[in-house]
């Protein structure tokens, strides 16, 4: 079953009055349980495709289907709700809320869904355990290492049981050891929990750990 599917996806930005095509008709199909690496040189359209799949931006033409729903036609608020329930985001700059503890960061998406606080905490602790941060739930991000912060982000991305994780260069700001731990964690989540992962990376070694690599060049899949 397709979790992510794009159909003739195009995106053209305007640089002043000059149209700059970023995606020139991309067709991808990611099925449930796959670990996909999206790779390509700088300017290939990786981030643009990630933004489209993450519903952070709208295509110029073409369709995006998530769990079978054509999200290109959804209203802004429906897109927000769809992101909250279906997609787990992991960004390269960790992007935690600095005033919240690790646990509070993890449960924030659950709170946005209006879930019971006790249930939020229970689920949050469970996920911190999954990413190996049981003892750090009350620590602020400033008290965590880069690798630990990224693991908190991963726990947060999982908290609403999304259809897939969308990871944008998740190891770009980590040292080799922490990067390796994160990749291992991704593999474990994918293998043990069957979580679909759609990861943008420029690191060939990291890409090789995925089930499949989708390569983009000049806005098309090659």
């Amino acid at each position, binding site marked *: 079953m397709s979790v992510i599917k794009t159909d003739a996806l195009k995106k053209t930005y305007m640089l002043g009055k000059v149209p700059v095509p970023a995606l020139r008709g991309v067709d991808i199909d990611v099925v449930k349980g796959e670990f996909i690496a999206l790779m390509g040189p700088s300017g290939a359209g990786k*981030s643009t495709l990630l*933004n489209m799949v*993450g519903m*952070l*931006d709208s295509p110029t033409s073409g369709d995006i289907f998530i769990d079978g729903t054509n999200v290109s036609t959804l209203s802004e*608020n429906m897109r*927000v*709700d769809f*992101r*909250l*329930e279906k997609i787990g*985001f992991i*960004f390269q*700059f960790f*992007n935690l*809320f*600095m*005033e*919240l503890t690790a646990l*509070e960061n993890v449960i*924030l*998406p659950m*709170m*946005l*869904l*209006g879930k019971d606080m006790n249930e939020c905490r229970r689920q949050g602790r469970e996920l911190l355990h999954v990413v190996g941060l049981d003892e750090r739930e009350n620590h602020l991000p400033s008290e965590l290492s880069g690798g630990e912060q990224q693991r908190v982000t991963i726990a*947060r991305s999982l908290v*609403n049981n999304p259809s897939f994780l969308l990871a944008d260069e998740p190891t770009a700001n980590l040292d080799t050891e922490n990067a390796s731990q994160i990749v291992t964690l991704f593999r474990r989540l994918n293998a043990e929990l069957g979580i679909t992962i759609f990861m943008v990376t420029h690191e060939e070694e990291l890409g090789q750990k995925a089930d499949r690599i989708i390569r983009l060049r000049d806005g098309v899949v090659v």
Partner: protein
Amino acid sequence: MRLSIRVILFMALKDIFKDKRILALVVFALTIGYTNVLMSTAVMNSFIGLFYDQITDTTVPHIVVEPREEKKFIEHTESKVKNIEGIAGVVGVASHLNSSGIVILKNKNIGCSVVGITPSLEKNISIIPEKIEKGTFLNDKEKTSVLIGTMLADDLEVSVGQKVTLVYSNGVKREYSVKGIVNTGFLFVDMLNVYVTREEIESVFGTHDRSTEIGVRLADRDAVGTYKLLIMKQLPSDDVKTWEEKMGFFVQLIGVLKIIWNAIRMMGLLTVIVTIAIIIYVNVTSKRRQIGILKAIGARNHIVLGIFLLEAVLWSMMGTFFGLILSHVLAYILNSIRIVLPIGLLVLRISSEAILLTVFLIFIASLLAAFMPARQGSRINIIKAIWGG
């Protein structure tokens, strides 16, 4: 709608309390702003209240009946006084027979207002009988004594028991013993007035049952307009004025002062608005990426807007709370050191109306100030916010 309020409250509280020093600075700034607004209101209301009270208690009763321009006196005063006394809501009526004059002691001659009063009735329309600083008040039949304003007495260097000479506007010159010194704290009374009995001044002017003014005191000062009309019906041949009309110049002056004070108050309010707007704007600007993340993971625009608006409200509530305390402390200190103005002792009172009005104004101002930057934050483009575009 999902339980957005919980997330808004959670995030706003976390953000506010994350840096205690910044919180303290923000609250301090808002406290000063709130105190400024509340204290300027208190000073204005207390000053105007004191001024109006002093005028109506010592100089011009709530309603004044005067002879028409072409006449010198109100005729048949006694019957007119009785008529007015019969009106429900009138708590006191007394007539005055006034003159200008010169009071003389040794080689000092000072111009004054001679007020001819019926001592037993004066308490019905003014507080002069209660304001005898030295000596005693007059009796109705007293013909050889006067009361003299305290500043005038100081200028003359006269004390109780000494003799002064009074020259009336008709040229009659008589000698009186100073029976009491009047100290109302109101410049215009204490500096100008000499009080004699009605009986005495009637003998000076060779007149009876005439007066230059009839003063009327009401149970409700604010109802002067209604009572003026009632009295005008009773006394069609005389000129009836409210105290505000009689003191037109001073009331206008107070009107100008009110404008100035309100401008100062608005500046205080503006300070609060600008402070909050800057804080929220800086907050939004410095949190672009976090706002982007919050929106990316599924927060609708209204949640982001709500967080910043609630922060503004919480800040203003804290500023209001501490401002209220500071204002009361300041008022207590200023009242303790006794601020004596030419119109009397200024007692600062922070009324509950002023507090409610200021709280309301600050609350609305906070929301208005925060709205634009908060809305700007809520509409941040996620991609630009996260990737710094």
